């Protein structure tokens, strides 16, 4: 028996059958409460998103494809969720992460597709800028997509973030994407990601009192736009940062 087999065997020691281990009535009660809460939260989030984006859903405009509305924002706007004061891990402008509608025509990347090195078997996590169309917001024309480069070389979009007020090229941090959708049967969780506009050479987040460094790549079409993401090994997907800061080449905070 080799070491891996010994570890496997040891892990099975003490395993009991499930019968009577858990109170399944309590499980059902807890599950029903959660289901009700999700329904209420969904309704509340939709109402909030409408208020934030003045009742207009974000539309993803694919090159050569007709415009169609994407799914409405499913999470409350980051600026309205009560982030702690001080250094904030949210954008200075209010924005709403927008899940990508799975039946949408995939938006074409603007500029280079950024490879992250994060692999899921034959697939790799990638980030790319896509055109977005937010009516009444002429200053917002781009969003940042987290997708996967598939084994056949295609792109599978997973999670899109974009501003819903102001200007998508103003200096500073823009919307940060936190994938809090929970386990999904068809795609891996998306690491925390976003973009910063300015001469950032280093971006550091804080969570639970520790610092985590982001990986940075400049966008090929506008080098002021710095795309960043946090390795899932240092920041689990969906976990919100307590703070985030960007520094220039001389170490000055931006």
């Amino acid at each position, binding site marked *: 028996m080799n070491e891996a087999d010994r570890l*496997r065997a040891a*892990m099975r020691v*003490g395993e009991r059958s499930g019968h009577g281990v858990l109170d399944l009535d309590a499980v059902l009660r807890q599950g029903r409460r959660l289901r009700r809460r999700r329904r209420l939260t969904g309704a509340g989030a939709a109402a909030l998103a409408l208020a934030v984006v003045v009742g207009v859903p974000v539309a993803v405009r694919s090159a050569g494809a007709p415009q169609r509305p994407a799914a409405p924002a499913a999470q409350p706007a980051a600026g309205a969720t009560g982030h702690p004061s001080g250094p904030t891990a949210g954008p200075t402008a209010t924005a709403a992460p927008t899940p990508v509608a799975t039946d949408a025509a995939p938006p074409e990347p603007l500029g280079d597709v950024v490879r992250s090195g994060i692999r899921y078997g034959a697939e790799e996590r990638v980030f790319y800028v896509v055109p977005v169309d937010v009516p009444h917001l002429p200053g917002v024309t781009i969003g940042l997509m987290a997708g996967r480069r598939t084994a056949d070389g295609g792109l599978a979009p997973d999670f899109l973030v974009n501003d819903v007020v102001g200007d998508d090229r103003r200096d500073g941090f823009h919307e940060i994407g936190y994938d809090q959708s929970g386990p999904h049967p068809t795609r891996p969780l998306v690491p925390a990601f976003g973009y910063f506009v300015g001469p950032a050479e280093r971006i550091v987040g804080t969570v639970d009192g520790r610092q985590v460094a982001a990986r940075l790549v400049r966008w090929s079409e506008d080098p002021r736009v710095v795309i960043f993401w946090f390795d899932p090994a240092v920041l689990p997907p969906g976990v919100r940062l307590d703070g985030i800061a960007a520094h220039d080449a001389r170490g000055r905070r931006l």
Partner: protein
Amino acid sequence: MARGDAEFVEFARAASGRLVHAAFLMTGDHHRAEDAAQTALARTYASWSRIRENDAYGYARSVLVNHLVDGWRRPIREYPTEDVPDRHGDDVADEVATRRWLLAILGTLSPRERAIVVLRYYFDLPEAQVARELGVSVGTVKSTSSRALEKLRGVEAAAPEGTRR
């Protein structure tokens, strides 16, 4: 009871033993393990209509492991329990020794590393699937598994003769 509920209860009865045991391997705490498994099953039930036709067990396992990775940051240690397995003499002594040996190894790992080891060696998942479920790279899964085995060698070398497996 609705048909969906009956299906879920049957599923939960079949799955709960392994889920509780996996949670125990990740926490070293029987009570926390049961709480975590109950939470994972409740979340699974809340999404039952969406996942029942897919991999419901995979969903529950993934919820459990990610819940523990994100929420259980305390160091692992074994808590005393009155829950003695229904076995005799040497079996119980063997089981206790094995569990201590195993928790000694797992206790040196971070919650995420423990999750990798449990998914890889308890649930026997391929490396790519472990990476997908935890949102980490395959390289991280490989290096963590290798480190765990290395620690196993270290603990084994230091262990008294009677506790070696």
